[in-house]
């Protein structure tokens, strides 16, 4: 059994208006594990992901990445190790060209500009975005933007890849392309998604978050095998219109 690379302990967080987002979340993820974070809208999935990178400070509890507590002087190293891909690619692509966007992380880590550019070109090529280096994000398709957002994170060679709805608003072909790419990656993977087929294709373990708490944690196939259980968590394995 490999050692945990990510440990979340009794994590609690309230929004500024007092709304409880996380109410004592605990779990750990081992090296190389691929975990789907499931739950209905508003369950706290995105809020939890922001804590893994130290972007939000918990009210109570904490997160440990490898042997580092998330926060304070460890933040720079934590952010290098945990690659966080946001739900909306446009939030993540903010510089005039794709190349600059992808090189942004390595440059912040202090890499020499030539090395940063070299790495950025390599990852763009690996993701099938060669030739688009000088394009601004608004000249890319939705699927390309999603891959570009992934490239901005993979370029820093994180050991843990955290993705928030990686296939949201993508057509079937683009969705398959993103999932195909992620299945080939070797990083530890934590994916927040509503898309159960995507979760099944990518992950062996599922954590269900409901109202800021872990409602279930176990093999994904077992979770998905019980429509009644899923329904109890506000999730659906199939589509049945109400009324």
């Amino acid at each position, binding site marked *: 059994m490999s050692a945990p690379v990510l440990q979340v302990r009794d994590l609690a967080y309230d929004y500024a208006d007092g709304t409880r987002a996380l109410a004592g979340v605990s779990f750990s993820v081992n090296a190389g594990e691929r975990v789907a974070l499931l739950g209905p809208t508003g369950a706290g999935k995105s809020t939890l992901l*922001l804590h893994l*990178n130290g*972007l939000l400070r918990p009210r109570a509890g904490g997160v440990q990445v490898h042997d580092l507590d998330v926060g304070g002087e460890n933040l*720079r190293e934590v*952010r*290098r190790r945990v690659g*966080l891909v*946001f739900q*909306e690619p*446009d*939030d*993540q*692509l*903010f*510089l*005039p*060209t794709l*190349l*600059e966007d992808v*090189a*942004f*992380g390595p*440059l*912040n*880590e202090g890499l020499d*500009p*030539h090395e*940063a*550019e070299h790495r950025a070109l390599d990852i763009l090529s690996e993701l099938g975005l060669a030739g688009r280096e*000088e394009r*601004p*994000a*608004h000249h890319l398709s939705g699927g390309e933007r999603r891959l570009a957002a992934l490239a*901005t*994170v993979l370029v*820093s060679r994180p050991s843990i890849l955290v993705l928030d709805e990686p296939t949201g608003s993508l057509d079937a072909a683009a969705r398959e392309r993103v999932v195909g790419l992620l299945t080939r990656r070797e990083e530890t993977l934590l994916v927040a998604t509503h898309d159960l087929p995507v979760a099944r294709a990518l992950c062996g373990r599922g954590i269900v978050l409901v109202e800021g708490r872990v409602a279930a944690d176990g093999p994904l196939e077992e979770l998905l095998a019980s429509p009644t259980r899923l329904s109890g968590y506000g999730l659906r394995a199939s589509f049945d219109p109400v009324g």
Partner: protein
Amino acid sequence: MSFRHLDRFADQASAMTRLAPSARLGIVLVVAVAAASLPLGAWLQMGILLLLVLVLAAAAGMKPQTLALRSSGPLLFVLLASTALLFLVPGETAARLGPLTVTDQGLLRFGSVLGRALPAIGAAVLLVSTTRFPEVVEALRALRFPLVVTSSLGLAYRFLYLLIDELERLRRAAESRNAGGGTTRRRRISAGFAATAVVRTFARSERTHRAMRARGYEGRLPTLHPHPLDRRSGLVLGAVALAGLAIALSARVPL
């Protein structure tokens, strides 16, 4: 939207696009400074500067009428802003337009503003037509403009498109529900668009800031290496700078 095709001459191989972006930006600055330094009524020098811009436009493969069309927007703004000079500057009466009197000094100043604006605007239009915006930002960096200025421009460029897309989505949503009616209602809808866009932009800026911090941003935007000013570009820029200096001096020094 035509806004997206401002730089459509940038991908054409031409004598202009072969110059380093910093040289193209330098040429604009030279023309603008030379034009601004010309005294009132230096018509010959203003004409020579305009001719220089037309020659540069030809080198970029841009027809004079295209340059004129693209310059018309900013030029209209200059016209509107300077029309008052015709009537407000004291001088001898040159003409009467109803209750308004055009003075000779007003005409001189108005003409001089236009004469200076034409080459300066033409050069700026030439720059944005032949240079992609990221290259303009790189050129500003190469010319040692403050990082805060170049970084802000880079971010603003990206956000401008996001804002345009946002407004476009709002407009379509309104049109799909038959938005229309009288002027007052249209104004109210437009005000609603603006307010919604501002709120959404704030939310987006918050999310973007998080995305930047997640990738190690600590208050300083790093840059990849700027395009160096090669020898050929340097020579062309130097020649244009000398020409600009000669034109400016010729208007000041009596022959």
